[in-house]
């Protein structure tokens, strides 16, 4: 078994192990931290699809994260008040069931991904980075200035939404939900990465003109990848809002886009489990350094800088060596 596979198992089994042991030791806070890692990792898996496989450096993934969050906030608040979300052209009522909310989060972030992707993919390289960042900021300011759903103050979700047969208010139960969603996304990512679609997408990252000249429309290909990526990150946003029982424009802020990118790059771009490792390290640093100093982000900055400058390939690159050749 090679080291990459070993590391995958270590992360994949380590996370539920930590949550399980914390449950036995009655440390609900640690369970919640593990849940946070799973959810943030999920957001990173989403970005990794666009960034790692497709080479699309999106600095606007907070949009989808936030849309997922607002799907929860809006539907749950209407469910609490027994008012419909909209009545025309068809009626949508509020909901407090996670699967129903996830569906809405998926559809909404797919539409947003389609719109932002369709415009941003008209360009490439550094333009793409700036444009995705700008659209992210647009969504942020819109959320702040639109008063119907709390504006700058955001929305509180008084009772965590429900999942059939589980009591989501119990930290471990909610961890199980989040972890299972993460596993599904990981499975999806690993299948897509070696599929015909993934092969072509991977090729666009390396040589766009070559891919066009074998008869593949790269714009459509990249747009599909971008939407898929948006959906996964949107789903993560929905879970995150439920974790915190709160959603606000800060979920849409550009720093969230940056953090999601950190998970991916700290872990190792393009590697299946890397965003989860990146998220885990991020959460641990946040807890540990956050306890040492109020200004822990200085240290985060220094570590990040060191990783970019000296440890290319992220933690996965350091531990498991260079990425295996695709497929």
């Amino acid at each position, binding site marked *: 078994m090679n080291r990459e596979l070993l590391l995958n198992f270590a992360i994949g089994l380590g996370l539920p192990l930590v949550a399980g042991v914390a449950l036995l030791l009655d440390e609900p806070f640690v369970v919640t931290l593990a849940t946070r890692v799973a959810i943030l990792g999920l957001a990173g898996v989403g970005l990794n699809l666009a960034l790692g496989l497709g080479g699309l*450096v999106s600095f606007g993934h907070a949009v989808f994260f936030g849309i997922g969050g607002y799907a929860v906030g809006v539907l749950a608040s209407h469910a609490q008040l027994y008012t419909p979300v909209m009545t025309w052209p068809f009626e949508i009522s509020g909901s407090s069931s996670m699967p129903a909310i996830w569906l809405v989060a998926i559809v909404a972030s797919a539409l947003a991904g389609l719109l932002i992707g369709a415009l941003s993919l008209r360009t490439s390289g550094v333009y793409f*980075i700036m*444009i995705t960042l700008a659209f992210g900021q*647009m969504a942020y300011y819109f959320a702040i*200035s639109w008063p119907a759903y709390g504006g700058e103050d955001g929305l509180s979700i008084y009772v965590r939404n429900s999942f059939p047969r589980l009591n989501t208010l119990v930290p471990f139960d909610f961890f199980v939900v989040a972890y299972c969603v993460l596993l599904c996304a990981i499975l999806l990512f690993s299948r897509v990465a070696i599929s015909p679609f993934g092969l072509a997408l991977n090729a666009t990252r390396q040589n766009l003109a070559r891919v066009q000249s074998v008869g593949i429309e790269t714009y459509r290909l990249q747009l599909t990848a971008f939407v898929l990526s948006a959906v996964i990150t949107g789903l993560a946003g929905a879970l995150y809002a439920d974790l915190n029982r709160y959603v606000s424009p800060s979920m849409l802020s550009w720093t969230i886009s940056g953090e999601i990118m950190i998970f991916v790059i700290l872990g190792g771009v393009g590697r299946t489990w890397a965003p989860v490792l990146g998220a885990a390290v991020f959460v641990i640093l946040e807890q540990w350094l956050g306890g040492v100093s109020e200004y822990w*982000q200085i240290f985060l900055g220094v570590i990040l*800088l060191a990783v*970019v400058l000296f440890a290319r390939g992220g933690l996965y690159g350091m531990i498991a060596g260079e990425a295996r050749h695709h497929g």
Partner: protein
Amino acid sequence: MTASLILEQLLNGVQFGVMIFLMAAGLTLVFGVMGLINLAHGSLYMIGAFASAAVAAFTGSFFWGLAASLAAAAAAGVLVEALVMRRLYDRDHLDQVLATFALILIFSEGTRWVFGSFPLYLDIPEVLSGAVPIPGGGQYPVYRLCIIFVGLAVGVLLYWLIHHTRLGIRIRAGENDREMIDALGVNISKLYTAVFAIGAALAGLAGAMVGAIQSVQVGMGEPVLILAFVVIVIGGIGSIRGAFIGSLLVGVTDTMGRFLLPEFFRLFFDPAGATAAGSAIASMAIYLLMAVVLIFRPSGLFGARRVES
């Protein structure tokens, strides 16, 4: 709505645009010459504002503060260029984004460490504190007119610098071809440092001037940075002229949008709804402008149309 009110808003828009231009000019120069996308440009703006607020408070002179902002931002720029950026020129954009994002964290938290989380305030100097009458019967602050003037002057200066000086020739050569500039025997690392320092000083200047109308606080740079990106997307990467026109477009669109859209919606909705809808749409106006430009000119108004080599 009177003519003087509209004129005042228009001037505000120009002043806002001119300030974004000071940021966008440095960014676009650095990108054009070194191929580097620098997210930490907003931090240099913040450093300029803090330096000017601190020095002005210490010396009691706004102008000492202004000088300090230029010096501090340029020094920070040179330092960052020498320590970090140099290693990034040949890297891909992803590495550049991430490394400069890391710099933002360091600068922001470092500033918070030194100055605390509370905003600082910078007073407008006595000589510039009045208002002058404008056509239509209104008054307009002298200080804001000064910002407009400084911005325009910087624009002219940059134009002159790029088209009529040796440094400018080198900058233009560097934009076209890095090897050519090597062949010309130009010391490329000095050139890069110089360009970076100029860009940094302009960002610091912008931060110091704005510091007197808004509060000086950590995180003030990034929203302006993102606006500068919008400007660059609209104007075209590497084009100072594009940055100038893009900045004015963005500044005026944003200010006039916030001013006119709620008024406009008042024709259809009740006042509260109109304000809400108007301000929500206005907050998106410049991004919609960017989207429209992208649809018709994917490489910006003045960007070089990419030619396949």
